[in-house]
């Protein structure tokens, strides 16, 4: 086990970095899209319900099936994997973002509205700062899920730790299976901790 690590550490490192790359790109794109969708949803209850139902439906498609559906359109590889991951994230992000923003004390919202804040001012000056921990919680869920599903995406040649894992499965190479799993779990935990740290820091900065 350790022997595999010392012999192939560069291969493992490359796979880990590749995995991280997929996760980070996915996260950036997901957040940008989710932010826009959240703003759009804040203008209309109907739109927000339609979007949530749509993404919840897509979210329930198994990941291999969604990848298979995308291949004829976008081909094999990283790009397709990232598209699928971004689509999955929209449900997790949007649901948590909207729940967080709606969870802000209604009397604060009413006071702000009565003072003549526009919807955008309300969103960015009042709702987002007050819902910050709920927003970060949503991002954490999306990140952990992305790290996990990204391993499956290597089934369509997207690379990453899933490549090592699937290789191991195909050849019944136990060290490969174990290292592939441990490293992807470790990656999920580390990124999650990092976000918790960011959240704590920003809370301290508020006080």
């Amino acid at each position, binding site marked *: 086990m350790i022997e595999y690590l010392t012999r192939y550490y560069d291969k493992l490192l490359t796979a880990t970095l590749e995995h991280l790359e997929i996760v980070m790109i996915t996260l950036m794109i997901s957040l940008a899209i989710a932010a826009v969708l959240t703003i759009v949803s804040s203008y209309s209850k109907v739109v927000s319900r339609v979007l949530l139902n749509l993404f919840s439906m897509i979210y329930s498609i198994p990941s291999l099936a969604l990848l298979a559906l995308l291949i004829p359109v976008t081909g094999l590889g990283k790009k397709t994997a990232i598209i699928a991951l971004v689509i999955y994230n929209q449900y997790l992000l949007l649901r948590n973002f909207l729940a967080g923003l709606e969870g802000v004390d209604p009397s604060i919202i*009413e*006071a702000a509205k009565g003072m*003549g804040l526009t919807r955008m001012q309300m969103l960015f000056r009042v709702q987002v700062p007050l819902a910050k921990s709920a927003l970060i919680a949503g991002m954490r869920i999306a990140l952990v899920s992305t790290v996990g599903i990204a391993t499956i995406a290597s089934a369509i040649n997207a690379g990453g730790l899933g490549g090592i894992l699937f290789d191991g499965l195909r050849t019944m190479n136990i060290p490969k299976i174990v290292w592939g799993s441990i490293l992807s779990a470790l990656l999920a935990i580390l990124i999650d901790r990092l976000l918790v740290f960011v959240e704590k820091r920003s809370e301290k900065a508020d006080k």
Partner: protein
Amino acid sequence: MSTAIEFRNVTKTFHGANYSAVDHVSLTIDEGEFITILGSSGCGKTTLLKMINRLYEPDSGSVILFGEDISTVDVVKVRRRIGYVIQQIGLFPHYTVSENIATVPKLLKWDKAKIAARVDELLTLVGLDPKEFRNRYPSQLSGGQQQRIGLARALAVDPKIMLMDEPFGAIDSITREKLQDELLNLHRNMGKTFLFVTHDIEEAFKLGDRVIIMNEGKILQFDTPEAIIREPADPFVQSLVDSAKAKEAFWRAYL
């Protein structure tokens, strides 16, 4: 004296309700009056108030402020011209006292020095020492102090009309008396039009130049406290006055 607020046959029925929260109300309020709105829970006081700053839109009829039909004016503009204070106060917990008060001045891009001066002026006006309070967070204030900040925040850009929805509803009776006296003082010195909702008859009669008595969405009587006590217009008003008199008699028995 000019007319500050006019309701012309205003009706508002909420979706699914089988009676109107505000039912064909017409009224005229002069600039500088202190009006209190009295009535039991659910009679439409809040609904009436919220149609003035367009938090609610009437189903029919029109609301006119200083001669201007507010349905033709941008909502945000209407609201920034009106001070609004609610029972739950709704201070922003992530802002300091001075940031809370400065919210609208900042949106209007006043310069920093002017904002700072205004914050201190308002804190003094509501009886709080600026040095001690301006940098506190709402969680570091008592209920009464929070409501003073709520009032200061609503006064920030010197609105001509102040709407107050049971602002002292959750405050103990001693602090409440004090706040009532201060509010009367403020009103006397500012010449603004005040609308103050309460379901406490003593508060309504003490504060109001004129009192609106509502029941089930309708205005039963709109007159000075003296006139209402002298000549209740309706059995419901009569029973309100009687209940206040009974309370008075109860206390008198102990003196």
